[in-house]
């Protein structure tokens, strides 16, 4: 067992975990934060996306012990205009991928604003196009196929931020 301390959604949590426990299992099973979902447990679906010090990560591919001393935000700790925009643009159906989509979108917008490149963005090109959003969000699967609504919600919020 290893004792770790993480700041989760603003409050400091101490946990005793075996070294093989994933961050996702620590959040869901030990801290009762079931907002991050387990869709594949191998980094293929993005449903477990959380923010670690503001960066989006797949919590299923992270070991809890790696995040000792770090700050984790799950959907339960998110208060962002994207949430309302997802509802208004119907950016989900069953809701199982939604926590991950929203956390991922928050991280993605920050990455884009910080000038992180993508296969779509050319040098010096800082416009956030729909194509750019689709490219950068492709790690988050939605089997209900709510992709149009998700992109609309993100564009809506990103446009307001830019304005």
């Amino acid at each position, binding site marked *: 067992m290893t004792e770790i301390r993480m700041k989760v959604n603003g409050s400091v949590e101490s946990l005793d975990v075996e070294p093989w426990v994933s961050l996702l299992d620590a959040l869901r099973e030990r801290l*009762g934060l079931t907002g991050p979902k387990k869709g594949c447990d*191998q980094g293929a679906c993005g449903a477990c996306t959380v923010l670690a010090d503001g960066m989006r990560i797949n919590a299923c591919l992270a070991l809890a012990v790696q995040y000792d001393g770090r700050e984790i935000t799950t959907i339960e700790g998110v208060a962002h205009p994207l949430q309302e925009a997802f509802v208004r643009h*119907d950016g989900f*159906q069953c*809701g199982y991928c939604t926590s991950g989509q929203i956390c991922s979108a928050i991280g993605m917008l920050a990455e884009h604003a910080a000038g992180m490149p993508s296969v779509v963005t050319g040098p010096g090109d800082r416009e956030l196009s729909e194509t750019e959003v*689709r490219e950068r969000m492709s790690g988050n*699967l939605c089997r*209900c196929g*709510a992709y149009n609504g998700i992109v609309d919600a993100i564009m809506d919020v990103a446009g307001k931020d830019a304005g």
Partner: protein
Amino acid sequence: MTTKYAETAPATTGTKYVGRPIDRLDGLAKTTGEARFAAEHQYPGLAHAALVHATIARGRVTAVDTAAARAVTGVIEVLTHENAPPMKPAPKFSVLDLSSLASGTSVNYLATDEVHWNGQPMAVVVAETPEAARHAASLVRLTYEERPAVVDFAAEEPNAVQQRSNPVMPSAADKGDARAALAAAPVSVDLRFSTPPHHHNAIEPHATTAVWDGDELTLHEGTQNIPWLRKHLSQRFGVPERNIRVLSPFVGGGFGGKGSVWAGTLLAVLAARATGRAVRLALTRESVYHTVGGRTPSTQRVALGADAEGNLTALIHTSVSRTSRIGGMPEQITSGSRHLYAAQNVHLRQNLVQLDLLANTAMRAPGESIGTFALESAVDELAWELGLDPIELRMRNEPERDPLHGKQFAHRMLREAYALGADRFGWRERDPRPGVMRDGRWLVGMGVATAYHPSWRMPASVTLRLGADGGVVVRCGLHEMGMGAATAQAQIAADAMGVPMEAVRVEYGDSDLPPGPGAGGSAQTASAAAGVLAAAEKLKKSLLAMARRQPDSPLRGRRLEEVEARDGGLFHGGRGQTYAEILAGAGRDHVEAAVKSGMLSFMARTLSERRRYVKAATGAQFCEVRVDPDTGEVRVSRWVGVFDVGTVINEKTANSQLRGGIVMGIGMALSEETLVDQRTGRIMNPSLAEYHVPVHADIPRIDVHYLDEPDPTMPLGLIGVGEVSITGAAAAVANAVRHATGKRVVDLPITLDKVL
């Protein structure tokens, strides 16, 4: 025009909410992480289970070694056929009890040493933590005696036999002599198609939390059919149905995969009973592939003959699909071919092989999704042969009545759908020659295909309760897996009772509620709507009766037909009473109305309707692709879908469902394929990393429209929207690729190697 007749009571109220794009009611719960799914409920002493899967396709287990697994810290129990408590066998199918369809397979798990497929669960480990359970499961050693297994679909195809027919799903049809007509036709095509197995891949893997308290069971499970699940568990575990509570308020995607009862559910309940602990079995993605059936593969032949003007003289559509020796459903692959074209001669056959694989099951539009791929690809190819526009070819063969038996269409507006779609898509801009439209280096192609899915109604029981504050509670065990079920019924109830939507609460997803319709066959919304409307009529009748007994009521002497439900009450002209006033005057704090729909009346209605009408949703799919001429990469760049789905209850959620079907159809067209090892019968890509569902970057803007003309044979005129939009979708892509490249791809998915 179709003949209109009023089967349901005419609406006595306006439609203030029905049709509007209202935000879904569970939006907040789903965007804040508050919504709890089946694996997200805590119980004191909750234990975790994991499955051990067979690694052979057929045979029996001769030795079990659980010592290493039992030695893992935290392991509570390892259950195998040697020590598991008994479970009763799966019930035999009975037409009088449709819940007998709930068995995913006929295997009595852990009561037998027999192996029926590669992946069958042979042991269950129960441990204090999920990690310990999974680790210990990897340490269970099974020794087998193997028997020869038949697992190769393609090799078994020559041994296919005709499916058995039933009243709702005939497996064959003949009109005239299609073979002779084909041989005599001046223009013809004769194509063979194949489609691979598919898996639903709902993002929520199947999970069960099972809690026994004596002989009472509480179950958290994402299911598409609460009543079937409850009855099935009652039969398997020998306890009365009333002892079983199924809670399923959120289902993280289903698409047919959560319609039957599969091994994980049964084994979680069994493990909980054996250990006396609350048990959660959250399947890994790989375990979902091994224990929950998927869509059958198919091979199909479609041959079409036409005269020089494009009038169809022959339509031949034959198919082979698979079931398993331990279950599975035959698919109605030729369903679209029965109803879409006015061919003079028709020959349809659906054939089956039985393999030693996990039973197949329904996946979004079973039959029609893959059947329309073949049919609509062949129609497109015939258009090429004729040098005719593919829409024009379809219009020349659009029947006025059902082509096989001359029945009326309850509703059919395919001509209008194509006209609107062509306009919205810009079909006129299409240069009919293949391979000439370009966008830079990309080849551009445009394709169309017809969507077709039958419409159904299932039994549903609904209770409506009106409280003294004027609030309405709709109680119905609906299944919410993303359709916006509660939202749609709240809209319907608000209009029917003439109250604001905020005054309506819908209770759903619980076996304690009146049993709802299953979420399948695109039938839930219409089925529940019929119940809500009937219950609202009963409720208004009771309220009017109360009002008429009150001496000062302006409603005295009024009949129900004369009053209008609006503004939270009943009114005649400008005068009336609010519900609160009526209840207060009667000294009541609430009034309830219950509607029960029995199986027998449901069967009678369904069969009588089917004798008179062909009932279906249809649509026109328009797809534009860009194809890389060097690599063969296909990108879908634009989509327009126009659907004839009757009255649309909620424009926002209906749009999402229709788009979702198209997205799954694009996946089917370009990337989705479950690979079965033809030697071992093992699924080789049981993961979301190797089974490619469409991602954001694969999906362009999808423009969805509907005609919004009510179907006179359906409640409120609505036809379900859950499945129709996946049908025709793969063909629209294939036809666009044909236009872009000149290549006809007949084997799904359309991967690069097939285009080059």
